[in-house]
């Protein structure tokens, strides 16, 4: 475990005070309950401190939309007769704070930052990401019945990628301050005092006790997943999945590490000006890999589902030595056809053993 720069505590009753103070510093996004009757949550821009809900199960959409908006202007253009002007679009320079994000989602942000820095740096993403403060939350058990974070190593925080980490230790939150920005995020607020020794002891105990709660395991060697994917490339398991899949795209849209986008143009009412924007896209949709002339390089749903899984546990592992699956379980929960990531990964592992035997 990486040692934090500093520890603080915050009484649960004072969360509201801190949230309100933070709202004055930047645009604060935090989980809120979507409906009173269902345990469904969503990261939203907070305007009322009371709506923040830290005791939440995985949100419907991941917090990536705070850094990568669903729709984002790339360039503006203006056409007059045969001439045109083009203008750059620079993200607004302002602080975003993502509050209460689970450690799995912090891992996901780190992955996205790696991808966006690779090769042609995606400056719009990176500018927003750099100006986003991450106040994370350590989970003490599975937050959702689909998650398998322990197997992907994401129930523990990554070494970097957050400013502050909170842990629920009963009547208060234990705060690990990891960056210089973190100190400014708590400032000298009287409600966030330095820790006493007993808090540290309790926190360490709490962390140790929590480990056993993460009991939903893949029970395969994840390092072998790229090889398992390779071995099962033509497995009939993909036919079964392809038959079930209705290609709604939900699994990718709710994934915290998916970053595919489409680019479209739209004219203003003047018909002269307009913008080119990007919008989240999904490799599960029929036209995603289609080119002119009726050729589609992933026409079958089977191939598209396999592609999704390989993009989570094979290709990024080979390219960045990172998994793009953080085990959050969102795709499994969003799937109306009951296609479960945990099952797929287990099947990949199990079927490979069979292949090896025969």
């Amino acid at each position, binding site marked *: 475990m990486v040692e934090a720069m500093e520890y603080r505590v915050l009484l649960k009753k004072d969360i509201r005070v801190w949230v309100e103070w933070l709202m004055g510093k930047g645009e604060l996004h935090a989980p809120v309950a979507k409906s009173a009757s269902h345990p*469904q949550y969503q990261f939203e821009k907070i305007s009322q401190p009371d709506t923040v809900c830290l005791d939440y199960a995985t949100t419907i959409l991941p917090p990536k939309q705070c850094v990568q908006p669903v729709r984002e202007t790339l360039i503006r253009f203006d056409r007059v007769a045969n001439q045109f002007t083009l203008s750059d679009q620079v993200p607004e320079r302002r602080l975003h704070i993502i509050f209460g994000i689970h450690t799995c989602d912090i891992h996901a942000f780190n992955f996205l930052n790696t991808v966006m820095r690779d090769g042609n740096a995606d400056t719009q993403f990176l500018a927003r990401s750099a100006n986003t403060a991450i106040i994370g939350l350590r989970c003490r058990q599975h937050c959702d019945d689909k998650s398998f974070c322990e197997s992907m190593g994401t129930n523990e925080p990554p070494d970097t990628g957050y400013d502050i980490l909170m842990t629920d230790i009963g009547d208060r939150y234990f705060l690990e301050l990891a960056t210089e920005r973190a100190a400014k995020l708590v400032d000298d607020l009287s409600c966030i005092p330095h820790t006493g020794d007993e808090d540290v002891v309790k926190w360490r105990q709490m962390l140790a006790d929590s480990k056993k709660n993460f009991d939903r395991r893949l029970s395969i060697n994840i390092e072998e997943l790229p090889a398992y994917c390779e071995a099962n490339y033509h497995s009939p398991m993909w036919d079964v999945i392809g038959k079930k899949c209705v290609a*709604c*795209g939900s699994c990718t849209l709710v994934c915290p590490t998916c970053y595919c986008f489409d680019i479209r143009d739209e004219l203003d009412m003047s018909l002269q000006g307009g913008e080119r924007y990007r919008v989240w896209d999904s490799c599960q949709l029929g036209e995603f890999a289609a080119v002119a002339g009726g050729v589609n390089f992933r026409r079958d749903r089977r191939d598209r589902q396999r592609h999704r899984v390989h993009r989570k546990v094979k290709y990024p592992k080979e390219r960045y030595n990172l998994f793009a699956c953080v085990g959050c379980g969102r795709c499994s929960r969003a799937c*109306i056809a009951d296609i479960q990531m945990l099952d797929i990964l287990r099947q990949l592992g199990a079927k490979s053993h069979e292949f090896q035997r025969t």
Partner: protein
Amino acid sequence: MKPKVAFFSFSSCEGCQLQALNLEDQLLSLLDIIEIVNFREAIDDKLENYDIAFVEGSISRYSDIPELIKIRNTAKVLVAFGSCSSQAGINAIRNRLRPEEANAMVYGDRAAWVETGHAKGIDEFVKVDYYLNGCPMDRREFIRLVKAAASGIPFIIPKLPVCTECKLRGNVCILEDRNTLCLGAVTLGGCNAICPAYGHPCVGCRGILPDANIEGMAELLRHHGASDLEIEHLYAMYNYGRISLLTARAASR
């Protein structure tokens, strides 16, 4: 020169024309780029020459056909305006009965006086340039189409399902959470998932996507407790053509 726009109506509730009127403030800025020459819901004057024709309603009478052809021959751009026009829509529910059976059911002993038969989308008779599907059509899409047509550039509706836009709105899935039967996964989006966003299931008014997994969808709806009859009714509301496909496939198994 601003392109001249005309609206026409066949078998329909004229709700799509009403939607265009409902644009209110944006209607005025639309009038900066187009000239409306024929719009029964809004103006009395009519002009017989126009560039863009929005045709609402399905074709259910032989006498409609010459009129439709005349519109096609006049307009440079012909738009199927709403579900009735694009795919015969809700009117096609009657197509499961023989025309005289349906007429007798509705008009009783005056059935013989009424000229009406099976409802058909307008593309069964004329070439359609663009489809503005939906019941009613989507106003933002309408504006996008008018902008494209007025500047002579093609109008494209990305082939995404309703689920995509529903997810991107961060909606709670009504199928998963309330077990409300919803066709969002197989229905063409573009409506910004307006029905599920307000708690109503998608009933497929914008048409079933061409490559939709109809069998898979039926299977998962059954898994959510739907009977085959319920599934059939769900599809039949706006996609009677596709449901016959479904039953044909089931019969062949």
